[in-house]
């Protein structure tokens, strides 16, 4: 049985490729036709070829298997049906993301300096001061270009009416970009003929752009750049190694570095001690420097904050930038954009309720069965409650948690995430997805063309995280006008 779009049921949701009356969306026709022309055997062969490519390219992610047993490498889950985004729509999204990250960086700079936004009453000061990512150690530090979050990964979702929203901004240490790059490589091996059908914008200049961004963070002419990883057991180690290699930067662990009495960061090499100018750190703030933060951290480098504050090393992303990555601060982003840029937000936020404000909290508590409740500072989909799918006991638990610590929660209506055709066994079914583009900010800013599309492989599920059974797709920004 080959693919039959007439039996593809979009179920009243927005599908990225197929309309409610089973027709290909504008631009998706060629892709749908190529898929339809494949026999069952050919489809299976392509799927197997993709799995083989992923294995032989060594594209893995690491899953924690609990205490004691440590972690295991899994092959990266990949669906061979690409997700299309039209160039015209993408240009708009890209402009919206740049605007957003620019405003967020202005906000972080302000938080650690004059704090005008509090004085002007736009964002309440206590929200920040109670944020667990607010770091007094960062007060008064001035990273180059006033940029704190150099690499941002924002999660985009599309609702049933086709509107794209920003679901969250990952300003600290977002991961996934290497999979975006590798997905394209796999796709070229598996479906080379599709690349004749479309003008697909390339994604492979990201490592060069990242390197240029990191270089712009120092005045040193040929800076020594290092990627600081927590090590091989980190779930994103594959990406750390990938990016270091693609940028020809040094991949280092904390123990490879040390800070001298001169507040300069050095790397231990067989040639001797070599000065490091820029560190793309993939370690959370609290593990960065045992002298300042967690004294038991084995991952960090004692004295790193000293060196950073002295201006002897650039850290990307800067410590403390997570203050704008807080899900309660998220609810203020439209105001933040208006405040710093005097512009209207190009990309909307998902409508959100702040549990800390009484009337909004009352609404949330009364409507827990309709809302998604998120803690202020978790990532990877952990610690949240999807109201319509939660049991009464879970809702009661969250109700108590919200009342105990309202600052730590916000709630959003449950969006009907868009779907895209996904190969399940030998046919296509709609599966929910999101999109994580990456935004670089240094001397200049840059947005990836497309990003990482994550797809929930289980029917009806909206959990796209690879740590919880999500898969991925290649994302094509397609230009129909050239």
């Amino acid at each position: 049985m080959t693919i039959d779009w007439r039996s593809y049921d979009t179920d009243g949701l927005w599908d990225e490729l197929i309309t409610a009356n089973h027709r290909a969306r504008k631009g998706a026709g060629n892709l749908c036709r190529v898929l339809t022309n494949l026999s069952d055997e050919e489809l299976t062969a392509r799927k197997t070829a993709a799995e083989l490519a992923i294995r032989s390219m060594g594209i893995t992610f690491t899953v924690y298997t609990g205490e004691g047993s440590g972690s295991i490498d899994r092959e990266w889950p990949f669906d061979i049906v690409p997700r299309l985004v039209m160039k015209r729509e993408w240009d708009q999204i890209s402009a919206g993301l740049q605007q957003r990250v620019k405003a967020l960086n202005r906000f972080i700079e302000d938080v650690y300096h004059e704090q005008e936004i509090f004085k002007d009453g736009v964002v309440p000061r206590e929200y920040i001061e109670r944020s667990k990512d607010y770091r007094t150690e960062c007060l008064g530090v001035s990273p180059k270009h006033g940029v704190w979050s150099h690499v941002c990964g924002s999660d985009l979702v599309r609702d049933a009416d086709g509107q794209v929203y920003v679901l969250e901004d990952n300003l600290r240490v977002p991961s996934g970009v290497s999979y975006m790059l590798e997905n394209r490589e796999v796709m070229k091996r598996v479906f080379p003929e599709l690349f004749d059908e479309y003008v697909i914008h390339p994604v492979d200049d990201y490592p060069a752009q990242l390197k240029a961004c990191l270089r712009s963070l120092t005045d040193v002419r040929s800076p020594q750049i290092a990627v600081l990883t927590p090590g091989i057991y980190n779930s994103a180690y594959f990406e750390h190694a990938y990016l270091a290699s693609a940028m020809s930067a040094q991949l280092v662990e904390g123990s490879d570095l040390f800070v001298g009495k001169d507040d300069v960061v050095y790397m231990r090499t067989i040639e001797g001690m070599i000065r490091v100018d820029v560190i793309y750190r993939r370690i959370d703030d609290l593990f960065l420097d045992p002298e300042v933060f967690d004294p038991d951290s084995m991952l960090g480098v004692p004295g790193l904050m000293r060196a950073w504050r002295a201006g002897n090393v650039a850290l990307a992303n800067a410590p403390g930038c997570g203050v704008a990555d807080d899900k309660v601060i998220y609810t203020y982003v439209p105001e933040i954009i208006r405040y710093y840029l005097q512009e209207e937000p190009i990309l909307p936020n998902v409508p959100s309720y702040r549990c800390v404000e009484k009337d909004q909290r009352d609404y949330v508590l009364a409507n827990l069965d309709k809302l998604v409740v998120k803690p202020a500072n978790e990532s990877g989909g952990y610690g949240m409650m999807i109201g319509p799918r939660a049991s009464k006991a879970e809702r009661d638990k969250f109700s108590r948690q919200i009342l105990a610590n309202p600052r730590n929660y916000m709630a959003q209506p449950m969006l009907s995430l868009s779907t895209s055709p996904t190969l399940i066994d030998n046919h296509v079914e709609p599966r929910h997805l999101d999109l994580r583009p990456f935004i670089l900010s240094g001397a200049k800013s840059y947005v990836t063309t497309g990003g990482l599309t994550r797809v929930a492989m289980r029917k009806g599920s909206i959990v796209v995280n690879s740590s919880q059974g999500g898969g991925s797709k290649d994302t094509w920004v397609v230009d129909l006008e050239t």
Partner: protein
Amino acid sequence: MTYTLSSTAQRSYWLGRYLERAENTARLVNVNARLLYDLPKRLPLGWQPLIAITGNQQAFSEYYEEPTEKNVCRFLINDPRNSGSLLSSLEAARENVRTLRGIVPRQTVEYVNEMVLFAKDQLTEPLSRSRRTAGLIEVPKFTQRIDGFMSANMLHNAYWSFFRLGNYLERTDMTSRIMDVGTDNMLEAVTDLEPYADIQWRSVLLSLDATQSYNTEVQEPIQQDSVLDFLLHNERLPRSLAYGVNSIRQNLRGLPRHESSLRIANRIRRKLRDSSFSDAQQARAFLDEIQVDLASLDRAIHRAYFESPANPAAAGKTKRKKSTGA
């Protein structure tokens, strides 16, 4: 430019050592078994020499009573309590290669994984003779494939030099230990048994895969003096001491700050060149001395490259104890 990280260089070095150690252990066990099948049962030779070769007498006695075939094979092949066992070496190799992504070719990581999976499948208890033999024959195929792939595809930079240093240090050490056993006088009482007179030396050559090379280069019957001379001095045999030390010297010369290590390697080379013995006793004393020198070369390499002054406790890998003989 990118620099060579001390920690990564250290892992490359240990990858080289562990792969070589695994291969040598596999060869050794199979060759010993073959040798024993040929001997009359009344001869005293058995599995004890293998424990002596690998320098693990103390650990072995801690866990086992008798050096029976079963006990020795278990200890050398899959006993997790023995950090020098074949399986422990392979797992250590895998740990090291995981952190060398981006340094070694992608396939290397894959091949090492395959090898570990194979060994865990084929070389765990209960291990019958036939299963053991068949499994062990595969190990050098895996290691040689990894070696060949790295050699042909990896950048021959400093990390490569450290990998080769690890290979040759381990190999030279192992060759000298195997020769040690050849010089053992266990068969003295039975040398009148004409067909078995040179059997120890035949087995030494076999375990080094050097019988054919010996026949080509030496063209003399297999006997103590000429085998010793061949394995010590022949510069064309990749498993001879002379070849190993030359390779070590060559790899060191390409590295910065090699003075102290190279000095020791040169000293070993001179000793080898000037060596000659009148009896097995002298030969054994000499080989023991070479093993001590190799251990100090290993320490010099660690000091120069892996342990920076600000990080004195970097190393952490244990060197096998020297406890051969007696």
